[in-house]
């Protein structure tokens, strides 16, 4: 790459980030999502109220909480979990003996939805406010503990009373959101690239530029410039998402989530995916005589890219099928497709269930017992994937 390509890249970057469309798109999309989330939470407040009206159980290790209407005390965790599974209570709050010092609560629920997690968090705060602050001899320490609670650790139980894994929801949201961000970033910047090249061809500005630098430098500069635009956009989106998560009860969903260094591979996949896409689009736009025709050609390209999505049910029902592996090997599919390596790497980046000891995170049974009755063809996957593979198999996903 020459200095001319960098000059082009810098120009395209500064020109694009000043565009009203880019600013509106970059700030508008998160605001729109925030609005939808706010609306969901607002309308969910009714659900939340109904949920709060449901009975909350608690196991008090501090001896500080007094019995109150709507709150059922349990002497130990096992009894509380049994009541939760039996549907006698909606939420079980476990208050450890050192709560006032550490402010760490554990909440058990059977509602694995987003609303369930945030609702549980709200219910816990309500519970603490009603049961601690009304105490006559409330210390300053206890007041602070209630007013500034740390996010509780939410554990979702299945019908058997075994934990589904606190990371299940986060494990779904994070890869999904990141895949969406990657795909949006790639498509947005590629769209800008195609539009830019198309406009230059239509206005014959490209011809003028070609008297200043070679076609290779011109395209390389554009691709790099728009890659920087895309990275900036993704960075802003991720930053805003982190701010929103940190400032809202959503943080409960991600509490305790640990990401390994494999997340870095996502960046590599993004860069490679972007370059593949942008080069394809740059070539398409270069060959088309106008922006409109370039857009039509791009549609054909996107159809090829989304071929696995059209056939989604086929590979997901049989992860051992050859077509599944083939789709993941196709460059146009693997970088952004849900079943592609980028998505898989995100899932792989979430620590596996070793922290649960010998229990499968889905079923709570010993690994072998959990997976003994695997259908033919899955045994190999189990051997290769271990406990996490077991979890994936039961979710009809292959992540290794």
């Amino acid at each position, binding site marked *: 790459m020459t200095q001319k390509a960098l000059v082009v890249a810098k120009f395209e970057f500064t020109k694009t980030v000043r565009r009203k469309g880019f600013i509106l798109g970059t700030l508008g999309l998160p605001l729109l999502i925030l609005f939808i989330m706010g609306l969901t939470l607002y309308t969910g407040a009714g659900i939340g109220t109904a949920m709060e009206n449901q009975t909350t159980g608690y196991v008090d290790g501090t001896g500080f909480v007094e019995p109150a209407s709507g709150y059922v005390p349990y002497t130990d965790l096992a009894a509380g979990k049994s009541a939760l599974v039996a549907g006698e209570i909606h939420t079980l709050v476990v208050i450890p003996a050192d709560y006032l010092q550490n402010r760490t609560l554990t909440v058990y629920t059977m509602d694995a939805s987003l609303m369930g997690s945030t609702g549980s968090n709200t219910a816990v705060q309500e519970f603490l406010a009603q049961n601690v602050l009304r105490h006559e001899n409330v210390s300053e320490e206890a007041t602070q503990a209630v007013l500034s609670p740390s996010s509780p650790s939410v554990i979702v139980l299945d019908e058997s009373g075994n934990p589904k894994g606190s990371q299940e929801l986060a494990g779904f949201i994070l890869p999904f959101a990141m895949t969406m961000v990657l795909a949006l970033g790639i498509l947005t910047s590629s769209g800008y690239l195609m539009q830019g090249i198309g406009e230059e061809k239509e206005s014959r500005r490209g011809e003028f530029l070609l*008297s200043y*630098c070679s076609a290779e430098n011109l395209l390389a500069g554009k691709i790099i410039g728009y890659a920087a635009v895309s990275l900036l956009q993704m960075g802003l989106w991720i930053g805003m998402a982190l701010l929103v998560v940190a400032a809202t009860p959503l943080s409960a969903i991600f509490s305790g989530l640990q990401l390994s260094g494999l997340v870095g591979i996502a960046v590599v996949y993004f860069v490679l995916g972007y370059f593949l896409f942008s080069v394809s689009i740059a070539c398409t736009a270069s060959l088309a005589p106008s922006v409109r025709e370039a857009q039509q050609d791009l549609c054909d390209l996107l159809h090829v890219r989304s071929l696995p999505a059209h056939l989604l049910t086929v590979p997901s029902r049989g992860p051992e099928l050859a077509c599944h592996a083939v789709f993941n090997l196709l460059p146009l599919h693997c970088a952004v497709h849900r079943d592609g390596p980028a998505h898989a790497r995100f899932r792989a980046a979430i620590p596996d269930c070793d922290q649960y000891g010998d229990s499968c995170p889905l079923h709570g049974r010993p690994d072998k017992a959990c997976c003994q009755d695997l259908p033919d063809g899955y045994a190999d996957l189990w051997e290769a994937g271990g406990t996490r593979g077991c979890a994936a198999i039961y979710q009809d996903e292959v992540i290794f």
Partner: protein
Amino acid sequence: MTERSPAGKNETAVLQIDHVTKVFDTKTVLDAVTFEVNKGEVFGLLGPNGAGKTTLIRTILDIFRPDSGTISLFGRTFSDDIKDAIGYLPEEGSLDKEIGVAECIRYFANLKHVQGIDEKADVWLARLTLADYKDKKIQDLSKGMHRRLQFILAVIHDPAVLILDEPFSGLDPLNMKLLKDILLDLRAKGTTIIMSTHQMDEVERMCDRILMLNSGKVVLYGKLDEIRQEFGLSVELRYEGTLPHLDNIVSISDSGNAAEIVVLKDADTQALLKTLAAQVTVKKFEIKQRSMNEIFLEVAGK
């Protein structure tokens, strides 16, 4: 007069085009075009619409690759660094309307590795009477201003070779004169100028040599004076009486009491005058070289 080395290579040529052919689909747009442009001259590229002038310019600039033949600039085949020595003003095309004038100049000057861009930009903006528009967006410029800005982009890096495709189109007479003066000034400083134009009076005033294309083929090439001489002489005649039949002339355009007679370059004009004087009352007999406009019409009309 060109200087040739013992090997026959023109030592003063900055651009050498050797049998360049370019075919689009089945149409031959350039057909074995061969010519040279010498250092420091103003070289005119002429031809009717669709003759292949713009294609030839794009091929010289490496925007199009020739199907056959070779192009060398400064004795070398084309490369990216050679582009830095060339300035180009296209006939068509607009600049990015969303950016500012100064930003546009900086961008293109950076692509040519220009040092002291802001100072040079100020000088050229003032010279092209665009100083007041430095901080404006390009969309705020008129067509003529846009054209002058494009010219600044073509010359900001002091190119050794300046290629202009219809440089005067879209300019009013005042700005046309301004641009012409600048071009003559650049020629005086040694810049080689290759200019494609339909304005034959400008060709006659500015060009040292010309190349004329018609249907992709070279139909005229050489020094302007020699070409004009080659095409004979024109006699402007005013008379009273009836014109006799004239031998040894190329053509005659008679309007009753005035006529334009084209004769061969070596014709005996004194004998012609005597013949005419014997038959009609000659009121005016003026011998002129043929204009480029006449030559253009004659050649392009063939």
